[in-house]
Protein backbone atom coordinates (compact mmCIF):
# COMPACT_ATOMS: atom_id res chain seq x y z
CA UNK A 1 0.00 0.00 0.00
CA UNK A 2 1.19 3.46 -0.88
CA UNK A 3 0.66 4.79 2.64
CA UNK A 4 3.52 2.64 3.93
CA UNK A 5 5.90 4.73 1.88
CA UNK A 6 4.58 8.08 3.05
CA UNK A 7 5.02 9.66 6.45
CA UNK A 8 1.46 8.58 7.26
CA UNK A 9 2.58 4.98 7.31
CA UNK A 10 5.14 5.51 10.10
CA UNK A 11 4.34 3.86 13.41
CA UNK A 12 2.92 6.24 15.98
CA UNK A 13 2.06 8.89 13.38
CA UNK A 14 -1.54 9.28 14.52
CA UNK A 15 -0.86 9.34 18.25
CA UNK A 16 2.02 11.79 17.86
CA UNK A 17 -0.16 14.07 15.74
CA UNK A 18 -2.94 13.98 18.29
CA UNK A 19 -0.49 14.72 21.11
CA UNK A 20 0.87 17.76 19.28
CA UNK A 21 -2.59 19.06 18.49
CA UNK A 22 -3.62 18.52 22.11
CA UNK A 23 -0.60 20.43 23.47
CA UNK A 24 -1.23 23.27 21.04
CA UNK A 25 -4.94 23.70 21.45
CA UNK A 26 -5.94 22.33 24.84
CA UNK A 27 -4.93 25.52 26.71
CA UNK A 28 -6.83 27.66 24.23
CA UNK A 29 -9.93 25.50 24.48
CA UNK A 30 -9.80 25.60 28.28
CA UNK A 31 -9.57 29.40 28.23
CA UNK A 32 -12.47 29.63 25.78
CA UNK A 33 -14.67 27.23 27.75
CA UNK A 34 -13.96 28.75 31.17
CA UNK A 35 -14.63 32.24 29.87
CA UNK A 36 -18.29 31.11 30.03
CA UNK A 37 -17.95 29.66 33.55
CA UNK A 38 -20.43 31.01 36.08
CA UNK A 39 -17.97 31.06 38.97
CA UNK A 40 -15.29 33.30 40.43
CA UNK A 41 -12.93 30.38 40.47
CA UNK A 42 -11.01 29.77 37.27
CA UNK A 43 -10.84 26.02 37.55
CA UNK A 44 -14.17 24.88 38.92
CA UNK A 45 -17.05 24.62 36.40
CA UNK A 46 -20.40 25.92 37.72
CA UNK A 47 -22.53 26.42 34.62
CA UNK A 48 -22.84 28.73 31.62
CA UNK A 49 -22.85 32.54 31.79
CA UNK A 50 -22.19 35.66 29.68
CA UNK A 51 -21.32 37.68 32.77
CA UNK A 52 -17.54 37.81 32.25
CA UNK A 53 -18.13 39.31 28.82
CA UNK A 54 -20.48 41.84 30.42
CA UNK A 55 -17.77 42.47 32.96
CA UNK A 56 -15.22 43.14 30.22
CA UNK A 57 -17.43 45.77 28.59
CA UNK A 58 -19.28 47.25 31.59
CA UNK A 59 -17.46 46.12 34.74
CA UNK A 60 -15.06 47.89 37.09
CA UNK A 61 -12.04 47.45 34.82
CA UNK A 62 -14.00 48.13 31.62
CA UNK A 63 -12.72 51.70 31.24
CA UNK A 64 -9.12 50.57 31.60
CA UNK A 65 -9.53 47.77 29.07
CA UNK A 66 -11.39 50.06 26.66
CA UNK A 67 -8.53 52.56 26.61
CA UNK A 68 -5.97 49.76 26.27
CA UNK A 69 -7.92 48.16 23.44
CA UNK A 70 -8.22 51.48 21.63
CA UNK A 71 -4.48 52.08 22.02
CA UNK A 72 -3.76 48.61 20.69
CA UNK A 73 -6.02 49.01 17.68
CA UNK A 74 -4.73 52.49 16.80
CA UNK A 75 -1.10 51.46 17.20
CA UNK A 76 -1.62 48.23 15.25
CA UNK A 77 -3.36 50.10 12.42
CA UNK A 78 -0.71 52.77 12.08
CA UNK A 79 2.17 50.33 12.54
CA UNK A 80 0.70 47.92 9.97
CA UNK A 81 0.14 50.68 7.39
CA UNK A 82 3.58 52.21 7.88
CA UNK A 83 5.45 48.89 7.91
CA UNK A 84 3.54 47.67 4.83
CA UNK A 85 4.54 50.80 2.91
CA UNK A 86 8.17 50.50 3.96
CA UNK A 87 8.23 46.75 3.26
CA UNK A 88 6.71 47.35 -0.19
CA UNK A 89 9.44 49.85 -1.04
CA UNK A 90 12.07 47.43 0.24
CA UNK A 91 10.63 44.51 -1.75
CA UNK A 92 10.47 46.51 -4.98
CA UNK A 93 14.03 47.77 -4.48
CA UNK A 94 15.43 44.34 -3.66
CA UNK A 95 13.54 42.29 -6.22
CA UNK A 96 13.18 44.80 -9.08
CA UNK A 97 16.33 46.83 -8.41
CA UNK A 98 18.61 44.60 -10.48
CA UNK A 99 22.00 43.73 -9.10
CA UNK A 100 23.59 46.14 -6.68
CA UNK A 101 26.24 45.82 -4.04
CA UNK A 102 25.03 45.03 -0.54
CA UNK A 103 21.88 43.39 -1.93
CA UNK A 104 22.36 40.28 0.19
CA UNK A 105 23.29 42.44 3.15
CA UNK A 106 20.13 44.52 2.74
CA UNK A 107 18.01 41.39 2.50
CA UNK A 108 19.57 39.99 5.67
CA UNK A 109 19.19 43.28 7.54
CA UNK A 110 15.49 43.42 6.73
CA UNK A 111 14.86 39.91 7.94
CA UNK A 112 17.28 39.81 10.88
CA UNK A 113 14.70 41.04 13.44
CA UNK A 114 12.85 37.75 12.89
CA UNK A 115 15.84 35.88 14.30
CA UNK A 116 16.99 38.25 17.03
CA UNK A 117 15.41 37.36 20.41
CA UNK A 118 12.60 39.80 21.10
CA UNK A 119 13.90 40.59 24.56
CA UNK A 120 17.16 41.81 23.01
CA UNK A 121 15.28 44.15 20.70
CA UNK A 122 13.16 45.29 23.63
CA UNK A 123 16.15 46.15 25.82
CA UNK A 124 18.05 47.68 22.89
CA UNK A 125 15.08 49.85 21.94
CA UNK A 126 14.66 51.09 25.50
CA UNK A 127 18.38 51.91 25.80
CA UNK A 128 18.34 53.58 22.38
CA UNK A 129 15.34 55.78 23.18
CA UNK A 130 16.78 56.85 26.51
CA UNK A 131 20.23 57.44 24.96
CA UNK A 132 18.83 59.88 22.42
CA UNK A 133 16.62 61.44 25.09
CA UNK A 134 13.34 60.32 23.58
CA UNK A 135 10.64 60.21 26.27
CA UNK A 136 8.98 56.79 26.41
CA UNK A 137 5.27 56.81 25.72
CA UNK A 138 2.84 56.48 22.84
CA UNK A 139 5.36 57.55 20.19
CA UNK A 140 8.04 55.08 21.29
CA UNK A 141 5.56 52.19 21.21
CA UNK A 142 4.48 53.23 17.73
CA UNK A 143 8.05 53.56 16.42
CA UNK A 144 9.11 50.23 17.89
CA UNK A 145 6.05 48.51 16.45
CA UNK A 146 6.58 49.94 12.97
CA UNK A 147 10.16 48.69 13.03
CA UNK A 148 9.56 45.14 14.18
CA UNK A 149 6.54 44.73 11.89
CA UNK A 150 8.59 45.45 8.75
CA UNK A 151 10.03 41.93 8.28
CA UNK A 152 6.62 40.37 8.87
CA UNK A 153 5.03 42.61 6.25
CA UNK A 154 8.01 42.08 3.93
CA UNK A 155 7.74 38.29 3.67
CA UNK A 156 4.34 37.94 1.94
CA UNK A 157 4.93 41.03 -0.19
CA UNK A 158 8.31 39.78 -1.41
CA UNK A 159 6.90 36.29 -2.04
CA UNK A 160 4.15 37.78 -4.16
CA UNK A 161 6.44 40.14 -6.06
CA UNK A 162 8.86 37.31 -6.81
CA UNK A 163 6.03 35.50 -8.56
CA UNK A 164 5.24 38.46 -10.85
CA UNK A 165 7.35 38.39 -14.01
CA UNK A 166 8.81 41.73 -15.03
CA UNK A 167 7.28 41.21 -18.48
CA UNK A 168 4.11 42.99 -17.29
CA UNK A 169 5.95 46.21 -16.53
CA UNK A 170 7.77 45.89 -19.83
CA UNK A 171 4.45 45.43 -21.63
CA UNK A 172 3.09 48.52 -19.88
CA UNK A 173 6.11 50.58 -20.89
CA UNK A 174 5.85 49.22 -24.42
CA UNK A 175 2.30 50.61 -24.37
CA UNK A 176 3.58 54.13 -23.57
CA UNK A 177 3.33 54.01 -19.77
CA UNK A 178 6.08 55.85 -17.92
CA UNK A 179 8.01 53.91 -15.29
CA UNK A 180 5.81 55.38 -12.56
CA UNK A 181 2.55 54.62 -14.33
CA UNK A 182 3.73 51.08 -15.12
CA UNK A 183 4.33 50.68 -11.38
CA UNK A 184 1.07 52.29 -10.30
CA UNK A 185 -1.26 50.75 -12.89
CA UNK A 186 0.27 47.31 -13.36
CA UNK A 187 2.75 46.24 -10.70
CA UNK A 188 0.95 47.71 -7.68
CA UNK A 189 -2.44 46.07 -8.45
CA UNK A 190 -0.67 42.76 -9.04
CA UNK A 191 1.18 43.12 -5.71
CA UNK A 192 -1.97 44.10 -3.81
CA UNK A 193 -2.87 40.63 -2.47
CA UNK A 194 0.66 40.32 -1.06
CA UNK A 195 0.40 43.78 0.48
CA UNK A 196 -2.96 42.93 2.08
CA UNK A 197 -1.52 39.73 3.54
CA UNK A 198 1.53 41.67 4.77
CA UNK A 199 -0.69 44.32 6.32
CA UNK A 200 -2.84 41.78 8.15
CA UNK A 201 0.17 39.86 9.42
CA UNK A 202 1.81 43.06 10.67
CA UNK A 203 -1.48 44.10 12.28
CA UNK A 204 -1.78 40.84 14.22
CA UNK A 205 1.88 40.88 15.25
CA UNK A 206 1.54 44.45 16.54
CA UNK A 207 -1.77 43.80 18.27
CA UNK A 208 -0.27 40.80 20.01
CA UNK A 209 3.11 42.19 21.08
CA UNK A 210 3.91 42.26 24.77
CA UNK A 211 7.64 42.15 25.43
CA UNK A 212 8.84 45.11 23.37
CA UNK A 213 5.75 47.15 24.24
CA UNK A 214 6.24 46.54 27.92
CA UNK A 215 9.80 47.88 27.76
CA UNK A 216 9.20 51.00 25.70
CA UNK A 217 5.70 52.04 26.79
CA UNK A 218 6.61 54.20 29.74
CA UNK A 219 4.28 54.82 32.64
CA UNK A 220 0.57 55.41 32.19
CA UNK A 221 0.13 53.92 28.75
CA UNK A 222 -1.20 50.42 28.29
CA UNK A 223 -1.95 48.27 25.28
CA UNK A 224 -4.30 45.32 25.61
CA UNK A 225 -1.53 42.73 26.23
CA UNK A 226 0.18 44.86 28.89
CA UNK A 227 -3.18 45.65 30.50
CA UNK A 228 -4.04 41.97 30.63
CA UNK A 229 -0.64 41.18 32.12
CA UNK A 230 -1.18 43.92 34.71
CA UNK A 231 -4.57 42.48 35.64
CA UNK A 232 -3.25 38.93 35.83
CA UNK A 233 -0.55 40.03 38.30
CA UNK A 234 -3.35 40.74 40.78
CA UNK A 235 -4.73 37.23 40.29
CA UNK A 236 -6.42 35.63 37.32
CA UNK A 237 -10.12 36.41 37.14
CA UNK A 238 -12.42 34.82 34.54
CA UNK A 239 -12.85 38.20 32.79
CA UNK A 240 -9.24 37.80 31.56
CA UNK A 241 -10.32 34.62 29.86
CA UNK A 242 -13.17 36.49 28.20
CA UNK A 243 -10.77 39.16 26.88
CA UNK A 244 -8.33 36.49 25.70
CA UNK A 245 -11.13 34.69 23.87
CA UNK A 246 -12.15 37.95 22.18
CA UNK A 247 -8.57 38.59 21.06
CA UNK A 248 -8.33 35.06 19.78
CA UNK A 249 -11.49 35.62 17.79
CA UNK A 250 -10.11 38.82 16.21
CA UNK A 251 -6.87 37.02 15.29
CA UNK A 252 -8.69 34.07 13.74
CA UNK A 253 -10.87 36.45 11.73
CA UNK A 254 -7.86 38.36 10.43
CA UNK A 255 -5.94 35.21 9.53
CA UNK A 256 -8.97 33.84 7.69
CA UNK A 257 -9.35 37.13 5.87
CA UNK A 258 -5.69 37.13 4.85
CA UNK A 259 -6.06 33.54 3.64
CA UNK A 260 -8.96 34.50 1.37
CA UNK A 261 -7.16 37.60 0.10
CA UNK A 262 -4.23 35.36 -0.81
CA UNK A 263 -6.54 32.94 -2.61
CA UNK A 264 -8.06 35.72 -4.73
CA UNK A 265 -4.57 36.83 -5.63
CA UNK A 266 -3.50 33.36 -6.69
CA UNK A 267 -6.55 32.93 -8.89
CA UNK A 268 -5.74 36.17 -10.65
CA UNK A 269 -2.17 35.15 -11.27
Amino acid at each position, binding site marked *: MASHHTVRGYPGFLSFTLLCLFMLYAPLIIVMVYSFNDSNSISHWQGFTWRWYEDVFFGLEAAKFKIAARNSLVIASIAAIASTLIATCAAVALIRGGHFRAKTASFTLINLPLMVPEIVIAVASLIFFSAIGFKTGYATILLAHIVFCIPFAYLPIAARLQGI*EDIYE*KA*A*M*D*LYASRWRAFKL*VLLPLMMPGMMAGFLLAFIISLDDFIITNFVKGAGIETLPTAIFGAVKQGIKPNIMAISTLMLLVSVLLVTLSHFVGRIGNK*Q*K
Partner: protein
Amino acid sequence: MHNSNSHDDIAIAICDVVKNYDHFCAIKNISLEIKDSEFFTLLGPSGCGKTTLLKMIAGFEQISTGEILLYGKQIANLPPNRRPVNTVFQNYALFPHLTVRQNIKFGLQMLGKNDSECNRRAAEMLELVQLNSFAERYPLQLSGGQQQRVALARALAPAPQVLLLDEPLSALDLKLRQSMRTELKQIQQDTGITFIFVTHDQEEALVMSDRIVVMSEGQVQQVGSASEIYEAPSNKFVANFIGETNFLSVDVKSAIGDYAQCRIADGTSLQCSFNKVHTGDTGVISIRPERISFCSAQQGDLRGQVSQRIYLGTDVQIVVKLPGDELIKVRMQNSNLVAIPNIGDVLGLKLEAGAAHLLEH
Protein backbone atom coordinates in the same frame (compact mmCIF):
# COMPACT_ATOMS: atom_id res chain seq x y z
CA MET B 1 24.03 57.99 -44.95
CA HIS B 2 20.25 58.18 -45.45
CA ASN B 3 18.86 60.69 -47.86
CA SER B 4 15.59 62.24 -46.84
CA ASN B 5 13.41 60.88 -49.65
CA SER B 6 14.04 57.28 -48.57
CA HIS B 7 12.46 57.87 -45.14
CA ASP B 8 8.97 57.10 -46.35
CA ASP B 9 9.64 53.65 -47.70
CA ILE B 10 12.15 52.48 -45.09
CA ALA B 11 10.32 51.83 -41.80
CA ILE B 12 13.30 50.70 -39.76
CA ALA B 13 16.94 51.14 -40.66
CA ILE B 14 19.45 49.27 -38.52
CA CYS B 15 22.91 50.68 -39.18
CA ASP B 16 26.07 48.95 -37.98
CA VAL B 17 24.44 47.82 -34.76
CA VAL B 18 26.62 45.93 -32.28
CA LYS B 19 25.57 44.49 -28.94
CA ASN B 20 28.24 43.39 -26.50
CA TYR B 21 27.54 41.75 -23.19
CA ASP B 22 30.21 41.27 -20.54
CA HIS B 23 31.52 38.03 -21.93
CA PHE B 24 30.15 37.67 -25.41
CA CYS B 25 28.98 39.56 -28.43
CA ALA B 26 25.26 38.98 -29.12
CA ILE B 27 25.09 41.11 -32.28
CA LYS B 28 28.17 41.46 -34.45
CA ASN B 29 27.60 44.48 -36.64
CA ILE B 30 24.23 44.17 -38.33
CA SER B 31 22.81 46.50 -40.95
CA LEU B 32 19.28 45.98 -42.25
CA GLU B 33 16.55 47.98 -43.91
CA ILE B 34 12.96 47.02 -43.28
CA LYS B 35 10.52 48.52 -45.75
CA ASP B 36 7.25 50.26 -45.01
CA SER B 37 4.21 47.91 -44.83
CA GLU B 38 6.40 44.87 -45.05
CA PHE B 39 6.02 41.55 -43.25
CA PHE B 40 9.65 41.09 -42.28
CA THR B 41 10.88 38.02 -40.42
CA LEU B 42 13.99 37.56 -38.29
CA LEU B 43 14.71 33.85 -38.60
CA GLY B 44 17.40 31.82 -36.92
CA PRO B 45 18.14 29.16 -34.32
CA SER B 46 17.95 30.06 -30.63
CA GLY B 47 20.85 32.21 -29.52
CA CYS B 48 21.35 33.75 -32.97
CA GLY B 49 20.54 37.25 -31.72
CA LYS B 50 17.13 37.66 -33.34
CA THR B 51 15.27 38.34 -30.09
CA THR B 52 18.02 40.68 -28.91
CA LEU B 53 17.65 42.64 -32.14
CA LEU B 54 13.89 42.86 -31.64
CA LYS B 55 14.34 44.03 -28.05
CA MET B 56 16.73 46.72 -29.23
CA ILE B 57 14.07 48.01 -31.62
CA ALA B 58 11.47 47.92 -28.81
CA GLY B 59 13.87 49.62 -26.40
CA PHE B 60 14.30 46.86 -23.83
CA GLU B 61 17.96 46.38 -24.73
CA GLN B 62 20.49 49.12 -25.27
CA ILE B 63 22.68 48.96 -28.35
CA SER B 64 26.45 49.09 -27.82
CA THR B 65 27.22 50.97 -31.03
CA GLY B 66 25.34 51.88 -34.19
CA GLU B 67 22.02 53.50 -35.01
CA ILE B 68 18.38 52.48 -35.21
CA LEU B 69 16.24 54.78 -37.35
CA LEU B 70 12.44 54.73 -37.42
CA TYR B 71 11.28 56.49 -40.58
CA GLY B 72 14.54 58.40 -40.54
CA LYS B 73 14.42 59.36 -36.87
CA GLN B 74 17.04 58.08 -34.43
CA ILE B 75 15.25 56.03 -31.71
CA ALA B 76 18.13 54.07 -30.19
CA ASN B 77 18.33 56.35 -27.16
CA LEU B 78 14.60 56.63 -26.41
CA PRO B 79 13.00 54.60 -23.58
CA PRO B 80 10.43 52.00 -24.72
CA ASN B 81 7.47 54.21 -23.81
CA ARG B 82 8.65 56.97 -26.16
CA ARG B 83 9.03 54.71 -29.21
CA PRO B 84 5.96 54.49 -31.48
CA VAL B 85 6.34 50.73 -31.84
CA ASN B 86 4.41 48.03 -29.96
CA THR B 87 5.26 44.46 -29.11
CA VAL B 88 3.36 41.18 -29.05
CA PHE B 89 5.26 39.27 -26.37
CA GLN B 90 6.05 35.59 -26.53
CA ASN B 91 3.84 34.71 -23.58
CA TYR B 92 1.52 37.62 -24.36
CA ALA B 93 2.08 39.42 -21.02
CA LEU B 94 -1.60 40.36 -20.81
CA PHE B 95 -2.38 42.29 -17.64
CA PRO B 96 -4.14 39.67 -15.50
CA HIS B 97 -6.00 42.24 -13.39
CA LEU B 98 -7.60 43.95 -16.38
CA THR B 99 -10.37 42.69 -18.66
CA VAL B 100 -9.80 42.09 -22.36
CA ARG B 101 -11.26 45.51 -23.19
CA GLN B 102 -9.18 47.26 -20.50
CA ASN B 103 -6.07 45.53 -21.79
CA ILE B 104 -6.76 46.78 -25.31
CA LYS B 105 -7.48 50.31 -24.08
CA PHE B 106 -4.31 50.51 -21.97
CA GLY B 107 -1.99 51.89 -24.64
CA LEU B 108 -4.57 54.40 -25.85
CA GLN B 109 -5.12 55.68 -22.32
CA MET B 110 -1.38 56.08 -21.80
CA LEU B 111 -1.28 58.16 -24.97
CA GLY B 112 -3.90 60.44 -23.36
CA LYS B 113 -6.72 59.64 -25.79
CA ASN B 114 -10.18 60.56 -24.49
CA ASP B 115 -12.70 57.96 -23.35
CA SER B 116 -14.87 57.86 -26.45
CA GLU B 117 -11.81 57.52 -28.68
CA CYS B 118 -10.47 54.67 -26.52
CA ASN B 119 -13.81 52.85 -26.56
CA ARG B 120 -14.26 53.30 -30.30
CA ARG B 121 -10.79 52.00 -31.06
CA ALA B 122 -11.11 49.09 -28.59
CA ALA B 123 -14.37 48.04 -30.28
CA GLU B 124 -12.63 48.21 -33.65
CA MET B 125 -9.80 46.01 -32.43
CA LEU B 126 -12.17 43.49 -30.80
CA GLU B 127 -13.92 43.29 -34.16
CA LEU B 128 -10.60 42.78 -35.96
CA VAL B 129 -9.62 39.80 -33.81
CA GLN B 130 -13.22 38.54 -33.47
CA LEU B 131 -13.40 38.67 -29.71
CA ASN B 132 -16.40 40.99 -29.22
CA SER B 133 -18.19 38.55 -26.96
CA PHE B 134 -15.13 38.15 -24.72
CA ALA B 135 -14.51 41.85 -24.02
CA GLU B 136 -15.41 41.71 -20.33
CA ARG B 137 -13.52 38.51 -19.52
CA TYR B 138 -10.17 38.35 -17.79
CA PRO B 139 -7.18 36.95 -19.70
CA LEU B 140 -7.02 33.78 -17.61
CA GLN B 141 -10.56 32.92 -18.62
CA LEU B 142 -9.46 32.70 -22.26
CA SER B 143 -7.79 29.93 -24.25
CA GLY B 144 -4.22 30.30 -25.50
CA GLY B 145 -5.35 31.23 -28.99
CA GLN B 146 -7.75 33.85 -27.65
CA GLN B 147 -5.06 35.34 -25.40
CA GLN B 148 -2.84 35.54 -28.44
CA ARG B 149 -5.47 37.58 -30.28
CA VAL B 150 -5.93 39.90 -27.32
CA ALA B 151 -2.17 40.49 -27.26
CA LEU B 152 -2.31 41.32 -30.95
CA ALA B 153 -5.31 43.63 -30.53
CA ARG B 154 -3.66 45.39 -27.57
CA ALA B 155 -0.47 46.00 -29.52
CA LEU B 156 -2.32 47.19 -32.63
CA ALA B 157 -4.77 49.47 -30.81
CA PRO B 158 -2.43 52.50 -30.54
CA ALA B 159 -1.75 52.16 -34.30
CA PRO B 160 2.01 51.71 -33.96
CA GLN B 161 4.30 52.63 -36.84
CA VAL B 162 5.87 49.20 -36.54
CA LEU B 163 4.56 46.09 -34.80
CA LEU B 164 7.11 43.74 -33.23
CA LEU B 165 6.16 40.09 -32.71
CA ASP B 166 8.39 37.91 -30.53
CA GLU B 167 7.67 34.26 -31.43
CA PRO B 168 3.97 34.88 -30.76
CA LEU B 169 2.79 31.52 -32.09
CA SER B 170 5.26 29.30 -30.28
CA ALA B 171 2.96 28.60 -27.31
CA LEU B 172 0.08 27.41 -29.48
CA ASP B 173 -0.56 23.87 -30.68
CA LEU B 174 0.14 22.94 -34.29
CA LYS B 175 -3.36 23.29 -35.78
CA LEU B 176 -3.98 26.64 -34.11
CA ARG B 177 -0.53 27.83 -35.11
CA GLN B 178 -1.24 27.09 -38.73
CA SER B 179 -4.54 28.93 -38.76
CA MET B 180 -3.03 31.89 -36.88
CA ARG B 181 -0.36 32.22 -39.58
CA THR B 182 -2.92 33.00 -42.23
CA GLU B 183 -4.81 35.25 -39.86
CA LEU B 184 -1.72 37.23 -38.90
CA LYS B 185 -0.75 37.68 -42.52
CA GLN B 186 -4.30 38.81 -43.34
CA ILE B 187 -4.31 41.34 -40.49
CA GLN B 188 -0.94 42.67 -41.61
CA GLN B 189 -2.22 43.18 -45.14
CA ASP B 190 -5.50 44.76 -43.94
CA THR B 191 -3.85 47.21 -41.55
CA GLY B 192 -0.81 47.96 -43.72
CA ILE B 193 1.38 48.17 -40.59
CA THR B 194 5.00 47.04 -40.86
CA PHE B 195 5.38 43.73 -38.99
CA ILE B 196 8.73 42.53 -37.67
CA PHE B 197 8.30 38.91 -36.73
CA VAL B 198 10.79 36.79 -34.81
CA THR B 199 10.75 33.01 -35.18
CA HIS B 200 12.95 29.95 -35.23
CA ASP B 201 10.36 28.06 -37.31
CA GLN B 202 11.39 28.18 -40.96
CA GLU B 203 7.99 27.04 -42.20
CA GLU B 204 6.31 29.92 -40.35
CA ALA B 205 8.79 32.34 -41.91
CA LEU B 206 8.30 31.01 -45.44
CA VAL B 207 4.50 31.09 -45.22
CA MET B 208 4.04 34.62 -43.90
CA SER B 209 6.97 36.81 -44.82
CA ASP B 210 7.49 39.30 -47.61
CA ARG B 211 11.17 39.19 -46.77
CA ILE B 212 13.24 37.14 -44.37
CA VAL B 213 16.60 37.72 -42.76
CA VAL B 214 18.35 34.51 -41.76
CA MET B 215 20.60 35.10 -38.75
CA SER B 216 23.21 32.98 -37.05
CA GLU B 217 25.69 33.79 -34.30
CA GLY B 218 24.80 37.46 -34.24
CA GLN B 219 25.29 37.94 -37.96
CA VAL B 220 23.12 38.28 -41.04
CA GLN B 221 23.47 35.21 -43.25
CA GLN B 222 21.08 36.23 -46.01
CA VAL B 223 18.24 38.66 -46.65
CA GLY B 224 15.62 37.98 -49.29
CA SER B 225 12.13 36.82 -50.16
CA ALA B 226 11.05 33.35 -49.11
CA SER B 227 11.70 31.93 -52.59
CA GLU B 228 15.07 33.66 -52.94
CA ILE B 229 16.22 32.19 -49.66
CA TYR B 230 14.87 28.75 -50.42
CA GLU B 231 15.89 28.54 -54.09
CA ALA B 232 19.16 30.44 -53.96
CA PRO B 233 20.65 30.14 -50.48
CA SER B 234 23.88 32.07 -50.21
CA ASN B 235 25.69 29.65 -47.93
CA LYS B 236 25.64 26.25 -46.31
CA PHE B 237 24.04 27.53 -43.11
CA VAL B 238 21.05 29.02 -44.92
CA ALA B 239 20.62 26.04 -47.24
CA ASN B 240 20.68 23.68 -44.29
CA PHE B 241 18.47 25.77 -41.97
CA ILE B 242 15.67 26.34 -44.49
CA GLY B 243 14.17 23.05 -45.61
CA GLU B 244 16.04 19.89 -46.48
CA THR B 245 18.86 19.73 -48.96
CA ASN B 246 21.76 17.69 -50.35
CA PHE B 247 25.31 19.02 -50.30
CA LEU B 248 27.99 17.93 -52.78
CA SER B 249 31.60 19.11 -52.90
CA VAL B 250 32.63 20.33 -56.34
CA ASP B 251 35.44 21.93 -58.30
CA VAL B 252 34.28 25.10 -60.04
CA LYS B 253 35.57 24.92 -63.61
CA SER B 254 34.08 27.88 -65.43
CA ALA B 255 31.16 30.32 -65.33
CA ILE B 256 29.26 31.28 -68.46
CA GLY B 257 26.16 33.49 -68.23
CA ASP B 258 23.87 32.37 -65.40
CA TYR B 259 25.48 28.98 -64.92
CA ALA B 260 28.74 27.64 -63.57
CA GLN B 261 30.24 24.33 -64.71
CA CYS B 262 31.13 22.26 -61.66
CA ARG B 263 32.64 18.83 -61.37
CA ILE B 264 31.76 16.41 -58.57
CA ALA B 265 34.10 13.78 -57.09
CA ASP B 266 33.34 11.01 -59.60
CA GLY B 267 34.10 13.34 -62.51
CA THR B 268 30.51 14.10 -63.53
CA SER B 269 29.94 17.66 -64.71
CA LEU B 270 26.92 19.67 -63.48
CA GLN B 271 25.47 23.04 -64.44
CA CYS B 272 24.86 25.12 -61.33
CA SER B 273 23.12 28.43 -60.65
CA PHE B 274 24.98 30.85 -58.33
CA ASN B 275 24.78 34.18 -56.50
CA LYS B 276 28.57 34.72 -56.54
CA VAL B 277 31.26 32.60 -58.11
CA HIS B 278 35.05 32.13 -58.05
CA THR B 279 36.18 29.81 -60.83
CA GLY B 280 39.07 27.49 -60.02
CA ASP B 281 37.99 27.13 -56.39
CA THR B 282 36.50 24.16 -54.69
CA GLY B 283 32.94 24.73 -53.52
CA VAL B 284 29.72 23.18 -52.27
CA ILE B 285 26.50 22.85 -54.20
CA SER B 286 23.03 22.40 -52.72
CA ILE B 287 20.31 20.36 -54.44
CA ARG B 288 16.79 20.28 -52.95
CA PRO B 289 15.46 16.68 -52.73
CA GLU B 290 12.15 17.51 -54.42
CA ARG B 291 13.85 18.89 -57.52
CA ILE B 292 15.38 15.57 -58.51
CA SER B 293 13.55 12.89 -60.48
CA PHE B 294 14.43 9.37 -61.58
CA CYS B 295 15.15 8.12 -65.07
CA SER B 296 16.93 5.16 -66.66
CA ALA B 297 20.57 4.62 -65.68
CA GLN B 298 21.79 5.63 -69.13
CA GLN B 299 20.16 9.07 -68.94
CA GLY B 300 20.19 11.72 -66.25
CA ASP B 301 22.76 14.05 -64.75
CA LEU B 302 23.88 11.66 -62.02
CA ARG B 303 23.76 7.92 -61.51
CA GLY B 304 23.50 5.84 -58.36
CA GLN B 305 22.01 2.93 -56.44
CA VAL B 306 18.94 3.16 -54.21
CA SER B 307 19.98 2.38 -50.63
CA GLN B 308 16.95 3.45 -48.56
CA ARG B 309 13.24 4.09 -48.98
CA ILE B 310 11.35 6.04 -46.29
CA TYR B 311 7.57 6.37 -46.26
CA LEU B 312 6.45 9.89 -45.20
CA GLY B 313 2.71 9.78 -45.93
CA THR B 314 2.26 12.37 -48.67
CA ASP B 315 5.81 11.79 -49.88
CA VAL B 316 8.39 9.07 -50.17
CA GLN B 317 12.06 9.79 -49.53
CA ILE B 318 14.59 7.73 -51.43
CA VAL B 319 18.29 7.76 -50.59
CA VAL B 320 20.63 7.12 -53.50
CA LYS B 321 24.33 6.33 -53.20
CA LEU B 322 26.52 7.90 -55.88
CA PRO B 323 29.69 6.17 -57.21
CA GLY B 324 31.78 8.50 -55.03
CA ASP B 325 29.85 7.23 -51.93
CA GLU B 326 27.94 10.52 -51.45
CA LEU B 327 24.32 10.03 -50.38
CA ILE B 328 21.58 11.97 -52.19
CA LYS B 329 18.06 12.31 -50.79
CA VAL B 330 15.29 12.40 -53.38
CA ARG B 331 11.74 13.29 -52.46
CA MET B 332 8.86 12.19 -54.62
CA GLN B 333 5.13 12.33 -54.19
CA ASN B 334 3.53 9.19 -52.93
CA SER B 335 1.45 8.27 -55.97
CA ASN B 336 0.32 5.21 -57.87
CA LEU B 337 0.97 6.97 -61.17
CA VAL B 338 4.75 6.84 -60.86
CA ALA B 339 6.78 3.78 -60.05
CA ILE B 340 8.63 4.16 -56.76
CA PRO B 341 12.15 2.71 -57.04
CA ASN B 342 13.12 -0.31 -54.97
CA ILE B 343 16.21 -0.72 -52.82
CA GLY B 344 19.12 -1.93 -54.95
CA ASP B 345 17.88 -0.37 -58.24
CA VAL B 346 20.55 1.42 -60.26
CA LEU B 347 18.99 4.55 -61.68
CA GLY B 348 19.75 7.90 -63.26
CA LEU B 349 18.95 11.15 -61.44
CA LYS B 350 17.61 14.06 -63.43
CA LEU B 351 17.97 17.56 -61.98
CA GLU B 352 15.49 20.30 -62.83
CA ALA B 353 17.01 23.36 -64.46
CA GLY B 354 18.67 25.45 -61.74
CA ALA B 355 18.18 22.76 -59.10
CA ALA B 356 21.91 22.58 -58.39
CA HIS B 357 22.92 25.82 -56.66
CA LEU B 358 26.51 26.78 -55.98
CA LEU B 359 26.95 28.22 -52.46
CA GLU B 360 29.20 31.16 -51.70
CA HIS B 361 31.47 29.50 -49.18
